[in-house]
């Protein structure tokens, strides 16, 4: 479902060129869940951005859902994401001027779906937020915001879900609930999950864990969930 070969990213810094990702290769099977863990600055989010086609690598190639992401231009990558990818972010990224329901409707509207409202309502119901569907993001708690974000990610039934520190901004109890919801939906839809976190307990719920350090995958571990 997801494959990367010799993936590298170099950026220019005031001190000169800086390699933030170096010779990364990975394979993720359909339906598999993989966690990428590492300290801050290890290159986790950079890797996620490259795998999702949000950024272009300095070298190397990426394939997603059978297509080479690195051979596509920005619009091509966007089209690929529209068909196959969902996102959950640490800082939720809800649009402030849209209600909870409208936030969930947005990806459906972008893909030209006919019954955006009904499908979004169903997704909102699934995450237990129907009573708050007309609330704006600033009227929701952190946990509620993340539930809206999860509903938004799953409403298009993506093949791959990228999650960037989904519990990073939440307290432990809320975080646990969110993780529960995420993994339940994941197994329900059979989605491939790529999760970036520094929380080992969360990572251990995935089939596999990739440990990153200084821009490289240092080691890989199968978990009991595999």
């Amino acid at each position: 479902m997801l494959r990367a070969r010799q993936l590298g990213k170099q950026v220019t810094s005031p001190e000169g060129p800086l390699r933030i990702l170096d010779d990364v290769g990975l394979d993720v099977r359909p339906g598999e869940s993989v966690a990428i863990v590492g300290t801050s600055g290890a290159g986790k989010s950079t890797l996620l951005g490259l795998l999702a086609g949000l950024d272009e690598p300095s070298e190397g190639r990426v394939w997603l859902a059978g297509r080479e992401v690195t051979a596509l231009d920005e619009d091509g990558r966007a089209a690929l994401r529209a068909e196959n990818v969902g996102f959950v972010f640490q800082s939720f990224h809800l649009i402030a001027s849209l209600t909870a329901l409208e936030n969930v409707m947005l990806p459906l509207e972008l893909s030209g779906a006919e019954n955006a409202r009904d499908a979004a309502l169903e997704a909102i119901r699934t995450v237990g937020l129907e009573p708050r569907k007309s609330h704006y993001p600033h009227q929701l708690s952190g946990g509620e915001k993340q539930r809206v974000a999860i509903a938004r990610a799953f409403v298009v039934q993506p093949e791959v879900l990228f999650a960037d520190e989904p519990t990073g901004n939440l307290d432990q109890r809320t975080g646990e609930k969110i993780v529960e919801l995420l993994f339940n939906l994941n197994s329900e839809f059979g989605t491939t999950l790529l999760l970036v976190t520094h929380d080992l307990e969360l990572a251990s719920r995935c089939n596999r864990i990739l440990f990153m350090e200084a821009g490289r995958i240092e080691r890989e571990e199968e978990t009991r969930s595999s």
Partner: protein
Amino acid sequence: MTGGWRDTIRIASRLLVRDWRAGELTVLVSALLVAVTAMTGVAFLTDRVGQAVEMRAAESLAADLRIESAAAIDPAYETLAFENGLESARMTRMPSVVFAGEANSLAAVRAVTPGYPLRGELKTAERLLAAPSVTNDVPPPGEAWAAPRLMARLGVDTGVTLEVGAAQLKLTKVLDFRPDEGWSFVDLAPTLLINGADLESTQLVQPGSRVSYRLLLSGPRGAVRDAKPLLESRLAEGERLTDIEDSNPQIRSSMERSGRFLNLASMVSVLLAAVAVAMAARRYSQRHRDRIALMKCMGASRRLVFRSSLLQLALLAMAGSVVGAILGFMAQAGLAWLMRDLIGQALPMPGFQPAFLGAFTAISILAGFALPDLAQMGKTPPLRVLRQDLDPPALRYGITWLAGVAAVLILLLWIIRDTRLVLTIFLGAGITFVALGAAGWLLVRLLRGFRGAAGVAWRYGLSNIARRGRESVVQVVAFGLGLMVLLLLSTVRTELMETWRQSLPDNAPNQFLINIQPHETAAMAGFFESRGMETPDLVPLVRARMSTINGENVTQMTFEDPRGERWARRDSNLSWTEALQPDNRIVEGKIWSGLPARAEVSVEQDFGRELGLSLGDELGFNVAGETLTATVTSFRTVEWDSFSPNFFMVFSPGVLNDYPATYISSIYLPENQRDVVLDLMREFPSVTAIDLDAVLGQVRDVMDKAALAVQAVFVFTLLAGLTVLWAAVQATRDERRYESAMLRTFGASRRRVLGGVAVEFIAIGLLAGVLAAAGATLAGWLLAENLFELDYGFSAALWVAGPLAGVLLVGLSGLAATWRVVTHAPNSVLRAA
């Protein structure tokens, strides 16, 4: 992902509606509405007042168009006019001696057909000295109405029978006023108005008699405009078409000035609103970068994002045009209603054109000032969802703003069609912008030195200004610009308008004295002296006909301007002077000092242009059979509305000494000294006095109406200035709110946070106020000197009002914008961030 227009329209419109509901578009839409409302409101009002002023001006012609000829006018013109929806009336005019018993006097007999005058009204009285009243009729057949001067010369009152040529007509009314009285030298003889049907029986029209025929035409504006070229193309040799443009130079001059004031007001409104739109669009694009990144992350293509932004702008432009035009219409209706007593007549309904102007305004402002930011917003990389610090590539504001300014410039040039005015304002605005920016930058830098000098609130407030360097400069410029316009409006405008009105003071000359013989000049000075009055300036006048330009015979020359053709074919009045009168201003070349070696002539600018003259041209004149040549050494403008004796051509002293001259003069006589004229006529029988009160009244009326309209229209400019202030406060509102909430979270007291914000805004307001006062002084002076040709005095009040208004307006609005931070829990602000 679908990328078709249908989906784009659906997405764009939904997002726009949601943005509107969430209050994201308030500033942008308000600024747009102010621009469109100002443009359409001014255009609607200008249209209506312009029509009213034109109608008033048309009264001096008694028509909208007039065809004049020494031969009978072909009835085909009337048919053509009728087919084009115009009304018509005829006037036949000839000098004739009128008899009343033994007494007789030369009169200008005017035979008119029913309908005359087509514009304006006749005033008649039952007998001499009785109160006049307005009439809509003309003398019935067999009757005549005479001007009081004629009746005085004949020594009769109404009721007598007059002999007019071969006809006997009963004098039934005193003709107190006719709108086309004018005061040209041909109108010397007093009028006798008779019915056109009586013309034949008078037998005054004979071969060789000095008859002039006039066909008067009037109708709706569009019909007049359409008919004019048709009529012009058919004019035969000796026939002349006149419209209000070339009728009365005094009224024309007033109309031009008021037109400039009105256009200035609407232009400044549009420019200010454009600045507000640009600021609002910038804030909108900054706030929506996350959304764009997210949309791209969800698979939206760049094309979809760009098209969606474009469509949103188009929808905004459409909504702004319609709502703005409706508001503009309502606003002008309200203004017209407010001014109803002062205008004193019902204004004609406006045309539809202003609504289209509104639409063009909305499109050019949005395309020029909002599109660049929104297009840039579309370039936000999708990776921003993971890295908040990723912004779209920086916008090259220089180029995009240049494009915006160009868009508005083209729009204004198209609408206003006064290249000089538009370019002056644009240049002025550009210089103001740069100067404000440079001064703002300097002042912001200077503030850094004060940071450690005062308490915490001061340190926090001032350091904020210095830290936000660029934004602070932008704010100082925006506030300064807004304040500058407010100051210009509140003080300079009043002074400009006053100066304009004072250019026609209450004691403007109301009597013109002509035909004063050279030997009478000393006696005339004595006449006024003996009455304790100031001796008026006696201006020499020589009648001549232009014969050559640079040696070429003018009768064989062709002129691009038909008016030039006319000037070259008629007698001119020449004069000479040692020094120019104050109402004359040299615009090109130099005026002589002392006695120049050769004959020099100073030519009025428009007259020179119509004849195609340039400096150094040799003009030849035929004066009483002799030839005289003079070199054009200067061009000058003349304030025709000053009512002093003025000439198209003024010669250097001595040149005309040997030619037969008479003198003319103008004096002001208050109502209770009118008998001085009678004494003067008795003492100097050859001198003719022309009463200018009627014309003066017309000009004053035009001025008052125009001045009122201008005052009213500046309300829009005021609104636009306030919108800029609002947009400037909104521009950094999010950041400020967030920072203040943070400070509160860290334990800063409510007073301290408010104090810091207050210091920051007050300092910015003060800087902006000082710059605004400087700008307003300079702009007022430039406007008065260059555009309106008025003398403008320095105003100390500006320097108090500017900084004070800055501190109050900016300080208060800044505090209002951040008030919520200190009255609500910081958490609510931080959570919304």
